[in-house]
């Protein structure tokens, strides 16, 4: 296993409550033996001892915000399924590909049984007939660990027919992706699972909870969301909401990458930890590398508008971050220090979204690539000031009206809060514009200089 570090990226020091990462420090955390030895599948027994409705109420009571990006409470989402329409399906979204985000992979690699148990609890609570565990294709280790775990769990009687001797029966089918970021969007995930091109479906009129996989009611939950359920069933919703804040209970996993001293994945208390804690705290990233200055950071995955040092004291809490002009998304922070070439950094993200556009709707397909090309020209030192205006024009073709951005006292700007309007079906199109807009708004001088001086700077700048 020499090319893998078994707990790559996960950092646990400091005295923080652990809900989903409680076994990460154990070398054999992914085995059934270890899982059982550390209280595994007890939550399932608790759940089966209660009625499905009681289990559902418990989850609803815990207000587990969806960890995929949109932050919609899981219990509420389950309740949106139309009554009396069966079969219903659960699709576990393990297609983690958002730039900067990296938690589901660890959860699948290091604690697959926790995810399986969480899925079973969900299946029991709302009467799901079948669970599809969709794992991103480029994660063979996660696939191997989950497959092994499922095989063990089937043999041990935790999955399949008459689970633990009850009449609760459900299959969990492992499904692989094959490399497409947009499939992480829940309707695209469903299309992909139906064997089609992973193109998002338009919602409204129909949401997956009503018409999803094969036209049946379908719940799509993120890996981290489901991984919280065993703890909640074992310890109770009351205990869960005691952690974190009222609007954002529990913990969540955050990956901090980029120009920090100690990049890593942390399980943090929801809603209270500030960005300053995360970037500068001793328990977390311990400051900017080489003692450099912070220039900007992306607070919630590649799609999120950027923050600067002015927003450092905001807590990691959805509503507050939204009001400040960005979003938390899937829990990823990317930090840029003062040596970073902002246009080039924005290009790496815009290129990502242009490349990952599914191509079905025009603004994203054409606009994303157009943005990338113009930005590339500017970065290459061949741009003109008309190009800068042009990028904003393309942006308004994707997102008409005001686009959210952070406040900037340097430029005398107030924040424009989330969300934006968009002409696309899903968020990939606006995401291609988000970094461009942030960079142009918060660092116009860098673009002006680039257009004026026509110079080229490598993206990493000073090492």
């Amino acid at each position, binding site marked *: 296993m020499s090319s893998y570090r078994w707990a790559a990226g996960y950092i646990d020091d400091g005295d923080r409550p652990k809900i989903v990462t409680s076994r990460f420090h154990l070398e054999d955390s992914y085995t059934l033996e270890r899982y059982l030895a550390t209280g595994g599948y007890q939550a399932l027994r608790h759940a089966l001892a209660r009625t499905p409705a009681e289990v559902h109420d418990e989850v609803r009571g815990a207000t587990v915000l969806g960890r995929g990006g949109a932050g919609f409470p899981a219990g509420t989402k389950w309740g949106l*399924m139309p009554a009396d329409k069966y079969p219903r399906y659960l699709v576990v979204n393990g297609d983690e590909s958002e730039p900067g985000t990296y938690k589901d992979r660890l959860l699948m690699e290091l604690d697959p049984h926790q995810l399986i148990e969480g899925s079973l609890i969900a299946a029991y609570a709302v009467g799901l007939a079948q669970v599809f565990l969709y794992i991103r294709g480029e994660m063979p280790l996660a*696939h191997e660990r989950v497959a092994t775990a499922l095989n063990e769990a089937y043999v041990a009687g935790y999955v399949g027919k008459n689970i633990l001797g009850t009449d609760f029966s459900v*299959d969990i089918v492992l499904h692989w992706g094959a490399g497409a970021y947009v499939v992480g969007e829940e309707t695209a995930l469903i299309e992909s699972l139906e064997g089609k091109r992973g193109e998002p479906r338009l919602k409204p009129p129909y949401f997956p909870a009503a018409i999803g996989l094969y036209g049946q009611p379908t719940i799509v939950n993120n890996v981290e969301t489901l991984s919280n359920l065993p703890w909640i069933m074992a310890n109770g919703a009351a205990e869960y909401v005691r952690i974190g804040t009222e609007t954002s209970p529990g913990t969540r996993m955050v990956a901090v990458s980029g120009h920090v001293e100690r990049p890593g994945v942390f399980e943090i208390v929801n809603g209270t930890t500030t960005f300053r804690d995360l970037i500068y705290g001793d328990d977390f990233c311990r400051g900017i590398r080489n003692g450099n200055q912070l220039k900007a950071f992306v607070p919630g995955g590649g799609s999120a508008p950027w923050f600067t040092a002015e927003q450092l004291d905001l807590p990691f809490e959805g509503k507050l971050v939204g009001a400040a002009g960005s979003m938390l998304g899937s829990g990823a922070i990317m930090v840029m220090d003062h040596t970073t070439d902002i246009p080039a950094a924005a290009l790496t993200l815009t290129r990502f979204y242009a490349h990952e556009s599914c191509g079905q709707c025009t603004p994203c397909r054409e606009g994303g690539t157009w943005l990338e090309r113009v930005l590339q020209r500017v970065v290459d030192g061949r741009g003109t000031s008309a190009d800068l205006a042009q990028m904003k024009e393309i942006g308004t073709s994707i997102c008409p009206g005001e686009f959210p951005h952070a406040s900037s006292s340097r430029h005398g700007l107030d924040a424009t809060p989330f969300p934006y309007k968009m002409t696309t079906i899903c968020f990939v199109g606006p995401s291609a514009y988000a970094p461009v807009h942030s960079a142009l708004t918060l660092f116009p001088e860098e673009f002006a200089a680039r257009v004026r001086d026509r110079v080229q700077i490598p993206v990493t700048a000073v090492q």
Partner: protein
Amino acid sequence: MSRFNDDNLRLAKEIIGRYPKARSATIPLLHLAQQQEGHLSDEAMAHVAELVGATPAEVLGTASFYEMFKFEPVGRYLINICGTMSCALGGSDELLAHAEKVLGVKVGGTTADGLFTLERAECQAACTEAPNMQVNYRHCHRMTNELFDRLVDDLRSGRRDGDIPAHGTLARVRQQIPAERAVGPAALDDRGAPAWLPAKEVGG
């Protein structure tokens, strides 16, 4: 030899049997075909189409949507160097330039010995371990030029055969559902609530 061999055909039918609709097995079956051949041939796609009940054009449409499917042979080792923000901030452009020099091919090219294909990839979910790359989708964290050189040497000499199989093989462990434990796919015309749901609780 482009259609599934007997073992894989059995496997393919088993996989199809897990889904309420055969077409859902398209991607797993395409992976299986790629495992058999290293890439997807037209014949393999036509065979998958036959098995899942779609037209070959639909299977091609699905396959070409996803990046992991290759329609031309690639090297035994597919090297993907991540170029998205975190890795770019961590120096992936330099790593890529180094890789091009060491392998003597440009991005997208395959070495003359057919061992390596070099690609530039997007985010690989290892952002804190920048710059990151994958060899046949196995992560290689915090790569440096020296580590890259050593890795290439190891791969050439076969020292990594144990943990990095040839391109096409994703996971070496497959899900196996024991027949006696299997519930079977939830058929779409099965309209009743599952057995464990008390009748009055439907609606969730």
